[in-house]
């Protein structure tokens, strides 16, 4: 299928990852503005369930590479298979989700194809017939619009949550096997095991109210202040990645692309600058309150209410107000 937009799908244990539906929605939008078709590529082993899940989701063609060697294949093998499918199909543009899986695949696919690649994109659009992406620079404090030249096909990796996963009008895609000579693909690394983290007692993904803390807290000893506000508001405490990296809070509390995605009624971000990997895990929250000393912090891009101030002044005051409202402190 010449000249279409190709979406690389992501699935695990028979389940299609939500980011794939976001890429399909974005892919349909790009395909429509170019007047071309939308295709998707799925690879793995024993894919009947995944094909059934995908087939009605709005693409015109579903390309399938189903092979025993892909049951637990490493990233380099997957990248080689995808590159081969792209070579055969010559799409206009390839879309892949910028998940941790996509982050590993995208540079390898692009290298194998010698194609231009743009990762971490927050948008992709067609302007005057050319693909233009928007992506962050410098911790997200700046954005750049970048035009992709038609050498390629260019590979575009879009952040989770950057594009809504709208339900596309159902249509039944034609399922087409892609023939790839698996014997010609070098297998160097060996995937030994895939481990799922045990479910913990604290599930921030289910909380209605989250008070989240970032690097701005500066000192591990100050964290109880955040916990106190979370309790006063009747919610759970969460954090951004740097606090987990520092060993100050356990991973189960981490919000973001490499942690949990949350969409509570209320998200209070204290001392969180708002790196894109954090924003992609919480920007769907119904109300976002951000407290940060830096008025240019990217967290204010998604916040509904912002306070440019020292969190050590605002947080205790807010805790006190919340306690007052509950009648725990005489006003």
């Amino acid at each position: 299928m010449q000249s279409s937009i190709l979406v690389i799908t992501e699935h695990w244990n028979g389940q299609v990852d939500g980011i794939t539906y976001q890429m399909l929605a974005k892919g349909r939008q790009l395909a429509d503005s170019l007047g071309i078709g939308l295709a998707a590529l799925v690879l793995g082993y024993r894919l009947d369930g995944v094909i059934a899940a995908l087939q009605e989701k709005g693409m015109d063609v579903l390309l399938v590479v189903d092979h025993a060697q892909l049951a637990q294949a490493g990233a380099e093998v997957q990248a080689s298979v995808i590159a081969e499918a792209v070579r055969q199909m010559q799409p206009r543009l390839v879309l892949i989700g910028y998940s941790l899986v996509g982050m590993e695949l995208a540079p390898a696919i692009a290298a194998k194809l010698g194609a231009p690649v743009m990762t971490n994109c927050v948008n992709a659009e067609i302007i005057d017939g050319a693909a233009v992406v928007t992506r962050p620079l410098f911790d997200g404090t700046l954005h750049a619009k970048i035009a992709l030249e038609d050498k390629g096909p260019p590979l575009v990796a879009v952040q989770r949550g950057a594009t809504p996963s709208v339900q596309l009008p159902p249509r039944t895609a034609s399922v087409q096997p892609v023939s790839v000579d698996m014997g010609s693909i070098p297998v160097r690394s060996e995937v030994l095991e895939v481990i799922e983290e045990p479910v913990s007692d604290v599930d921030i993904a289910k909380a209605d109210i989250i008070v989240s803390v970032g690097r701005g807290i500066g000192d591990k000893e100050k964290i109880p202040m955040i916990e106190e506000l979370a309790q006063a508001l009747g919610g759970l405490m969460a954090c951004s990645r740097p606090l987990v990296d520092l060993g100050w809070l356990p991973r189960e509390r981490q919000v973001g692309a490499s942690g949990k995605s949350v969409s509570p009624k209320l998200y209070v971000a204290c001392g969180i600058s708002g790196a894109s990997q954090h924003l992609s895990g919480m920007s769907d929250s119904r109300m976002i309150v951000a407290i940060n000393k830096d008025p240019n912090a990217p967290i204010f891009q998604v916040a509904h209410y912002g306070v440019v101030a020292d969190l050590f002044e605002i947080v205790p005051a807010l805790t006190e107000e919340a306690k007052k409202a509950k009648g725990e402190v005489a006003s």
Partner: protein
Amino acid sequence: MKIVVCCKGVPGTVADVKIAPGGKAVQYQGQFLTMNECDEYALEEAIALKRAHGGEVTVLTMGSITTQDILYLALAKGADKAIRIDAQIQDSQAAGTVLAAALRKLEYDLVLTGTQSRDTLSGLAGIATAERLEMPFAFAVTQVEVDGDKTIKIRKELGGGRFADVRLPLPALLCVQTGIQPLTYVPPARMLRARQQALRSFSLSDLGLAEQQIVPQGYHFLNIFPPERTGQAQFLEGSAGEVAAALLGKIKEVL
């Protein structure tokens, strides 16, 4: 084990960012560079592996003379050798070409780097380098275990609470995840001593590369701008008490 760590010097603060002439890259001037934090974790992991298994750590960077500061920091943290490639490249795929050319001149069993740099946020250079050397790689690595003469076993993050254990033959390239080791503090005295050590440098011609081979291809920057505030944040001002009372009022509306 011989380990090469690829570290990038990045601006400590965001200021004076411009589109470079030709419209293919971003440019910044007159700033102090710091070691890209993701790469600093890679350096700490390399030093931890050296302590456990012996060997040597070489730190490799690319940039103008100002990037020497991050090499001295690496030496102060425990790296044995430091090399600067005298080239200013922002395009990640081109960076992969140059780093691969430099690695061809070095002896190594393992190459470590971070997952992404805070300036371009691309996360491409590491795997682009591995691909050019036809070397196995892994991304978002959270644990490294030396399990044989010629192999390592690593754990990498897949997202959604999943991890994969993978065995790779050496030499291999790993993009390590932040938090793999604690970051160590370098006392000023050690930094001063490190500044006495000699640094090596490679020019592009030393690497057999010409400028025109490393020009970014296939895209151009249109413009760079502060991101739109999609949330249309309403900013609250006043004393801490006033702000807190106003915030609680807003919060009650959604709960």
